């Protein structure tokens, strides 16, 4: 490719999913092509849609690498939070289907606010004020 810049990426650092994600963001700005590089690396060719100077190409490369980091972090976070996310969603769906008794409801029955067992609803004057 003429007027293009090549990047060699280590798939151990940047997963392929992140490379696809970053490429997708840059599809409007540049022409991208992926191929195998030396020693298992991934070669990404970036070519501007308009004619770009060397500096502009370097900037494009920098922006692409930033986006790549952004996607890598996103993927890692999604991976680390996968279990808790699935747990929250499954619990929410289970509750919505009425598969679980609402524990808050049970406590609510024990401590009915209308009965006011701790005397919270009594005005201060009534509770501590001087009796006339």
């Amino acid at each position, binding site marked *: 490719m003429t007027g293009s810049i090549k990047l060699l990426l280590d798939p151990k650092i940047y997963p392929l999913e992140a490379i*696809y994600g970053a490429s997708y963001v840059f599809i409007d700005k540049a022409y*991208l*092509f*992926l191929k195998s590089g030396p020693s298992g690396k*991934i070669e990404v060719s970036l*070519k501007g849609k308009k004619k770009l100077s060397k500096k502009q190409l370097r900037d494009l490369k920098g922006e692409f690498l930033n986006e790549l980091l952004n996607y890598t972090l996103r993927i890692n976070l999604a991976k680390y939070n996968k279990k808790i996310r699935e747990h929250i969603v499954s619990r929410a769906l289970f509750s919505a289907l009425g598969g679980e008794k609402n524990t808050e409801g049970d406590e609510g029955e024990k401590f009915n606010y209308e009965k006011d067992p701790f005397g919270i609803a009594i005005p201060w004057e009534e509770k501590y004020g001087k009796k006339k």
Partner: protein
Amino acid sequence: MKKILLVLPFLGRKNTERKNKDMTIKFDKKFYSLKAVKSAVKKYRNFADFGLKQKKNRIEVNLKNIDKDVSNVIKDEFCNYVLYSMKILS
């Protein structure tokens, strides 16, 4: 009747000047799936005649009779579309 017969061969493709220059694009199977390449071929079939070949590690796409208006950008645009399909179809 004659008119219809003349138009029929051109149905589904642009009736513009074509370049005879062939072009081959090699897609690494590690990064590009056949499904994505086929979807791109489907989108771009009006601009050239496409031929697909599957090799051990790569998919080869051969372009013939490329539309003159798009001949200088078709390769890059086609590659971008395959990449886009990879993201969308995954």
